[in-house]
Structure formats: C-alpha cells, structure tokens
C-alpha cells in the first residue's frame, strides 16, 4: 500500500544571527489516506517547522537549508515548481493555524474568503463557489451561515473564526489537513467543540490529518498515531493505544506524567521533567534528552540512538529500547499482544 504522504529523512536548518538552528533533524514518517497523526512536542521541538516544510512555508527565514524527501502522492514536494505547489496548498493539502484572527483577511467577508479558495482550486463559477462556501460554513457549525457569510472576521468569536478556518481548509476536499495547534488560542469548552468537529469532518470526508500540538489530550481526541519530537528529533512513534498503555521513551513518559489524571489526589505533586531543553544552535552529541533523563547510560551521551522498532506500530529512539527491540523477536512478550 502506498502512503499518501511519505517524509524521508527530512532535515531543515536556518541561519540566524545566533548561528545555525537545526529545526528538524532526521525526521521520517508516512501517512496513509484517511489516517491521522499527532506530532507532539514542546516549543522549539521542530514540530511546526516539520509541518510547514511539507508546504515549503519558511516565511520568516532567509537562509534555509533543507534535505530529504517529502513525497505526497508520489511527488517530492521539495522539488515541484512553485506554481504547482500553490495548487497543492489549500487544494490537496489544507491548513489550519493557531491564530484564526491573523490567518483571516480582516476586510473580506468570510463567505468570500471560503469561496475564493474554492474558485482558485476547483475553477468553480462565482455563484457555485458561493453556494459551496455557505454549505461549508453551515457544515462547520456556523449558525445562519447564509447571512453570516457576509460578515467580516472581527464580528466572529475566536471559536467561530477557527471554524471558518476549518471551512476554508476543507472546502476543496483536500487529501491531507495540517492543523498546527488549532485550538491553543481557544477556550477549553470551545477547544473541545472544535477538536470534535475536526475529527468528525475528517472521518466523514476521509481526509488524512497531521495534528501538531503540545498537548497529549488533543492527540488523544484526534489522532490514531503519535510522533513525539524533542529538540528537532523524533523520539517515539507509536499508535495512540501504545502511547497510553506502554509509552517507551523516557521523554514521552515524562510528558505523560504531566497530563492531568484524575487518579491523582487533589493536591498531588506533579513530577516535572527537570532542566531545560537544549538550545537548537548547540551541537548535540548523543541523545538530546540525555541531560534530563533519569535512565542515562554512558552510551546515551556519546551516540545518538536511532529509531528502534520495538513492536508493531511502535518505534522509540532510546538506547534502553534497543535491548527491548531485540527481545521483541521472542514470543509471549506483553507488547506483542496488541
């Protein structure tokens, strides 16, 4: 089965005043049609850059070096022409960003903004596109879509604006939707609604999803698989159930301990991961998490661990996992029983 999107050994670095920043370092994953992948990491982990690389959006940076391959439906997006790429952006690949206010044109009625994208990508006529826009706005849960499509973005609440963004992203029936922290700026109850909406529409329309977030809760609600990133490198890659039941990488475990769990008593202490993530301008030798890890081996400080395959649907970049990866071949180990 050929994957919809295949990212192979992607590395991205920027040249800044402070030196060369490695934003993504050796990332590989693949995504089948209709599948959803959550990319989780803290700020500076490279999760956003890796998703923007898929669309070659490097807006703010002058000197970017990219290597690797990003195969979308078999074509390398790093090599297609700009014209072709602009048909793919918003057409076959939709995007939803964190801040719905700055992503919308403040002086254009929202209906028109949805319709514009439809006309550009499908060549529909003005009235056709308008009808489709209203239909999409209705579908994302904007009440009175027929009337409200004439209004400007500022008269919408944050949640409604993000719904409009979802409508724009899905209007052309893309194959892949990239959502970059789509609910971080929203209130908790509204966040829940938007996540649910994204998940439902995606399933209905058979769209693959890359959900970029810092929050395992968001992943739990929307993703089938998870890729955990730290300091520009992939740490763990597994299905959502592996994640909650037998997370392998110490970093993943550390993060999971911080997700609210109600088994803890009310005033329970949290168990933070001590220390700071490394600066991306530093040369990292060995495992980037080693300085904060409580299981550090000598090897961790010297050699970067590759992503070990430790079970079906489960990879982990940890030297501790290496041992388990060998044992995995033995029968009757618990992680075989999926």
């Amino acid at each position: 089965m050929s994957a919809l999107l295949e990212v192979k050994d992607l590395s991205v670095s920027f040249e800044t005043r402070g030196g060369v920043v490695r934003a993504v370092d050796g990332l590989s994953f693949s995504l089948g049609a209709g599948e959803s992948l959550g990319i989780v990491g803290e700020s500076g982990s490279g999760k956003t850059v890796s998703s923007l690389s898929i669309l070659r959006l490097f807006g703010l940076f002058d000197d970017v070096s990219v290597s690797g391959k990003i195969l979308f439906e078999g074509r390398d997006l790093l090599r297609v022409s700009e014209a072709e790429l602009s048909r793919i952006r918003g057409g076959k690949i939709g995007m939803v960003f964190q801040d719905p206010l700055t992503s919308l044109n403040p002086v254009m009625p929202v209906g028109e903004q949805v319709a514009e994208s439809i006309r550009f990508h499908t060549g529909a006529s003005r009235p056709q596109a308008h009808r489709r826009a209203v239909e999409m706005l209705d579908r994302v849960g904007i009440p009175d879509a027929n009337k409200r499509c004439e209004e400007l973005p500022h008269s919408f609440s944050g949640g409604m604006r993000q719904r409009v963004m979802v409508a724009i992203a899905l209007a052309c029936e893309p194959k892949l939707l990239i959502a970059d922290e789509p609910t971080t700026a929203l209130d908790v109850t509204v966040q829940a609604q938007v996540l649910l909406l994204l998940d439902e529409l995606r399933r209905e329309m058979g769209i693959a999803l890359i959900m970029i977030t810092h929050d395992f809760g968001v992943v739990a609600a929307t993703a089938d698989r998870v890729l955990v990133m730290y300091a520009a490198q992939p740490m763990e890659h597994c299905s959502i159930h592996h994640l909650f039941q037998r997370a392998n990488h110490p970093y993943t475990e550390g993060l999971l301990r911080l997700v609210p769990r109600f088994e803890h008593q009310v005033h329970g202490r949290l168990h933070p991961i001590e220390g700071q993530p490394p600066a991306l301008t530093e040369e990292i030798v060995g495992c980037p998490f080693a300085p904060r890890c409580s299981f550090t081996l000598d090897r961790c400080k010297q050699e970067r661990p590759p992503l070990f395959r430790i079970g079906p649907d489960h990879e982990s970049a940890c030297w501790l996992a290496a041992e388990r990866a060998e044992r995995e071949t033995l029968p009757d180990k618990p992680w075989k029983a999926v």
Partner: protein
Amino acid sequence: MPYRVVASERRVGSPPIRRRLQGLLEKRGWWLFALFLSLMAAWAIFPGVFAPYDANYLNPRNRLISPGGASPEGSHIAGTDGLGVDLFSQMVEGARLTLMIAVVATLLGAAIGVTVGMLAGYFGGVVDRMLMRLGEAQTAMPMFLVAILLLSLLGPSVTILIIVLPTLVWPIFARVVRAETLQIKQATYIEAAVATGCPTSVVLYRHVLPNVVPRILVLFVVEIGHVMLAEAGLSFLGVGVQPPDITWGLLIAEGRPLLTVAWWLTILPGVLLSVTVLSLNILSRRFEQYAGAAA
C-alpha cells in the same frame, strides 16, 4: 502569508542584490560617517588645531583665491572669500556655533517633547487632548515663518535662536514619545509596577522612560540635522546668526552674491552641511537597528 521558494539540498534565499546595496551604506559604510561626525565635533571643540589661519584675519590682496590656490601666506585648500579670509578656516570655525546651536536647541526641544508626550500618552484623556491639540496647532502654523517673525521682532541673536528653534521640533518628539508611551502603557510590566505599589512618578521615570529612550535617541540624531538646516535657513535669510559669529548657514548666505564668480563660497559650506546632515541620518538608522535588535 509570505513565503520563500525553497529547493532542497541547497542554500536558498540570500537577499537580493538591490537590498544588499541599499543596506551597504548603513551596514558597512556607517563608520565612515561616524568618523566624519567625530571630525566635525573635533573641529567644533579644537578649531585652533585644524584651522590653518585666523578666521577673522582678512587680507583684501588675497581675495577670491579658488580652492587649491595659494597666496603669499600659504595655500588655501578651500580658497578665500571676497575679503581674502581663508574659507577652510571659516568652515572649521563655523562648526562650533553650528553644532552648538543645533545640539542645544534639539535638546531643549526633546526635553519639552518627551515630557509632554509621556504625560499625554500615560494619562490620556483631557491632558492628552490638550497637549496634543497644542502640538497640532503648532504644526499647522507655518512655524518657520513664525520663527522669522519672532527673530525679526526680538532682534536676531544666538540666544533667541536657541529659544525659537526648539518650538520647531518639540511636537515631533511629543508625538513619537506619546505613541511609544501608549504602547508601553499596555505592557504587563507597567501593570506589575503599579500593582507593586510604584507611585506614578516612579512608573514614568523608571519603567516608561528607559523604554522610550532608544526611540528618542534615534529621533534626536535626526532632528539635530533638521535643526541645523533650520538654523542655516534662518541665518541665510539674515534673521539668524549675525557676523562676526560664523555658522555654515551664514557662510552660504555670504557667498550667495558671489555665486557666479566664486562658486566655492556657497558650494563648499553647502556640501559640508549636507554631508553632516546625511551622516546624522545614516547614524540614526544604525541606532534604530540596534534599538530594534535590543527590543
């Protein structure tokens, strides 16, 4: 959303050549202008070191020697004027008053403008409206003409000039500082200062002012240039500095009747004035970059 086309496996997106050229003067050549300004400052402080002749010594026999020529007393790199005074020595001598008037007047203007702008921006409301209307009224009036009027009424003198010139620039400082203060006022650290119990004077002096200083510095440098030009204009019109004091503006004015026979008398001080103002502008851009990088 702006983006840059990127091809894989090679470095991309170096800035276009045009932008590089534009930035070259400020990025690479700025120190030349800084050096020039230091030289001007040195002229102003130690004219005796640089001037080959006494700027008040006149010898009609040496009239109108063109630049590079020589008299029995020696060479005249910038020529001599209609009275046989060495022009270069006059330019060196003129630097003192020219710079002094410009700096002092701009300082005064900045002091008024910063105070007004900060009060207007921080308190808003009636204070703001009154102070800013005052500034606007002044901007709407042809201040240069008012300055001419005042100077002709009060009689031209350096002191009066230093009092009149700041009125030209304070509204500019006030507007910039007010805008900046409005923005800083929104910052959480101002709220934090108030919540801590800082009296308003402390908030303004310790928290608002240090954060507007970078902008004031940039503006200050530019405005010195403007004030310098204004002074030259007034002196040119005869209501500014009076002989035997010398400023560059006055030199230009004195050379004007002889423009057809002795071009250097107007052109050389003019060039000096222009290059000084240009240097100030370029240096202010440089400051601005630093201020931007620090913030």
